[in-house]
């Protein structure tokens, strides 16, 4: 029987329906009939829907590295302090309980790996096979990355992980090249960004292996040889990818250069500059790399090569140091502030992933879906920009991709006849195209341009 109410939703009434919500199939049809009063029923239905939508916390897990470092650091910090009986007011006021955390050893989530294997076996090798050629944004790309994660998880030690990451970086490079050929700028950017991270991670694992006393010379040599080829390939790919993705590819090439330098040092060789066609040997200069050079000879000195740092100097870690920051001073993804040309962190990668998803949706002829994704992208871009974690050059590149995709979606482009979305947004001559994007600092001000909404789309125009 429906409940009678006094014309309003009370906290107790709401709580009763919330308690029944867990057993109910949906907020529209809760286990207990809604009250007779239509206004009360309508309000209850909306509140219940919101409660149900809030759901669970995000499916994030602390990284294995954070787990081990945090535990070790916690123990170290605790050991430095007397056993707690009752904390002192002085301790709280002075914050003397804050101490830097220290790193420690790894721990492998074996159960996760085992279940992933079971799932893959259950679905059949065909799915895994179909995923091998997937690009960022494709339906099977998550399968591909899941298999890669499994490989990394099952690697026995740091040196093995470095080799796996080296292989994964090669896969990312292939994705950059294929996505570039397909004109998929967002996919190029995602793959290039992942390449840079995997190269950096390989270096860190190799550093840890070396620090533990292991002879990693052979692996370092192999890493150096691969990175040299990959650096050249990225330099060549940069000319072929859409303009919006060139910055990402350049960063990937820079990561390859840094990795090559470090790996060559570990292998006992100076970073080899190679004679470039038509230019001096300057390893790391993207514009001057031409055909894939020969592998460096261990021990060879490159003419004009910069003096190598002292052996054992670790490469700059991809993560910030482990000192606890002061409140109000959130750290960036790499310990560096977002500058004019560089954005880092998963917020930026999330934006790239959304562009890739919108791009893929367009390729499948799902323009409405693409527009919804781009709507969410725009909000998130604004939030990341206002939080100060987005470099200006990257913001403009992202916006350029966004506008291109919006135009393509509006034009109703299908997978086969896509409007050229990646034409150069920065004409070398003549005036810049009129921007439809209003910088966040100007929004709401008189005369400011409207939000970058696609015209003629009611749902976007209503915001």
């Amino acid at each position, binding site marked *: 029987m429906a409940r009678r109410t006094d014309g309003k939703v009370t906290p107790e009434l709401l709580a009763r329906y919330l308690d029944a919500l867990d057993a109910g199939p949906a907020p529209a049809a809760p286990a207990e009939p809604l009250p007779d009063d239509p206004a009360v029923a309508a309000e209850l239905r909306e509140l219940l829907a919101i409660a149900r939508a809030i759901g669970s916390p995000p499916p994030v897990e602390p990284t294995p590295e954070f787990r081990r470092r945090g535990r070790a650091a916690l123990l170290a910090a605790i050991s430095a302090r007397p*056993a707690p009986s*009752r904390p002192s007011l002085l301790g709280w006021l002075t914050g003397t309980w804050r101490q830097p955390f220290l790193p420690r050893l790894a721990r492998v989530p074996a159960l996760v790996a085992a279940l992933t294997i079971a799932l893959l076996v259950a679905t059949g090798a065909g799915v895994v096979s179909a995923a091998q050629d997937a690009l960022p944004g494709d339906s099977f790309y*998550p399968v591909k990355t899941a298999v890669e994660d499994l490989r990394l998880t099952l690697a026995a030690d740091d040196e093995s992980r470095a080799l796996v990451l080296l292989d994964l970086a090669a896969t990312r490079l292939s994705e950059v090249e294929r996505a570039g050929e397909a004109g998929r700028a967002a996919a190029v950017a995602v793959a290039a960004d992942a390449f840079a991270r995997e190269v950096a991670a390989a270096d860190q694992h190799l550093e840890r292996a070396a620090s533990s006393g292991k002879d990693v010379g052979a692996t370092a040599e192999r890493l150096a040889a691969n990175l040299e080829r990959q650096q050249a390939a990225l330099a060549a790919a940069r000319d072929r990818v859409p303009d919006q993705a060139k910055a990402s590819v350049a960063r990937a090439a820079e990561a390859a250069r840094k990795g090559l330098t470090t790996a060559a040092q570990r292998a006992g060789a100076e970073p080899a500059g190679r004679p470039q066609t038509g230019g001096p040997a300057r390893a790391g200069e993207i514009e001057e790399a031409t055909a894939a050079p020969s592998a460096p000879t261990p021990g060879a000195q490159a003419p004009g090569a910069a003096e190598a740092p002292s052996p054992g100097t670790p490469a700059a870690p991809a993560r910030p140091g482990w000192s606890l920051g002061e*409140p109000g001073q959130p750290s960036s993804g790499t310990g560096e502030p977002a500058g004019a040309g560089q954005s880092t962190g998963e917020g930026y990668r999330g934006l790239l992933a959304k562009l890739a998803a919108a791009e893929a949706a367009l390729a499948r002829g799902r323009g409405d879906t693409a527009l919804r994704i781009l709507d969410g992208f725009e909000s998130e871009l604004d939030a990341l920009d206002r939080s100060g974690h987005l470099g200006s050059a990257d913001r403009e590149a992202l916006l350029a991709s966004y506008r291109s995709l919006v135009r393509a979606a509006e034009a109703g482009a299908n997978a086969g006849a896509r409007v050229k979305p990646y034409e150069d947004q920065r004409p070398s001559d003549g005036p810049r195209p009129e921007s439809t994007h209003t910088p966040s600092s100007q929004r709401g001000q008189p005369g400011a341009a409207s939000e970058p909404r696609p015209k003629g789309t009611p749902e976007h125009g209503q915001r």
Partner: protein
Amino acid sequence: MHVEEGLDAETRATSADSEPAPSEQALIDAAIAGDVQAFAALYDQHLARVYRHVCYLVGRRADAEDITQQTFLQAWQAIGRYRRTGAPFAAWLLTIAHNLAVSAHRAARPIAPLEFEPVARGRWSDPEAETLAEIDREVLRRAILRLKPEQRQVVIMRFVEDFGYADVAAALGKSEANVRVIQHRALAELRRLIAHKVKV
């Protein structure tokens, strides 16, 4: 439910399970007595949950790691004051985490987007649908983070962390009736924020 959640060593506190498991009880008692290894075991049990909670609040992984570390260190310092008023140990930890997150980011407006690569995507589902769902979740999250502090805390503990009224009340030092009132106001405010598409 994601596969990885089923593997998590922690169990979610519910309103019907406010007493810590015997093993956790023993660890807490030992930690209060100064047993570092016992506290380290509590750290192992609750790290993921605290981390997820902080990620939800602050968005950025790097910040979440810092605040998570501070949470456990502060918990160690304050464990002598952990009173078993019916609040699960997890709820007590999350209260510490929440307060630290609020303090750390009090001046950090606007709200940073939630940055993470989901541990367990729907591997064979539609990535476009997943992206849209992620966008909707982020809109709701940002609206929640715009609530008044106690409303936000009640909503997150009730609906994100799935604590019962008794546990939330014990953790926040309020009556259950008061928690229901705050809950109602919070959901009504969320309704207003979302319905009017208030910039969050």
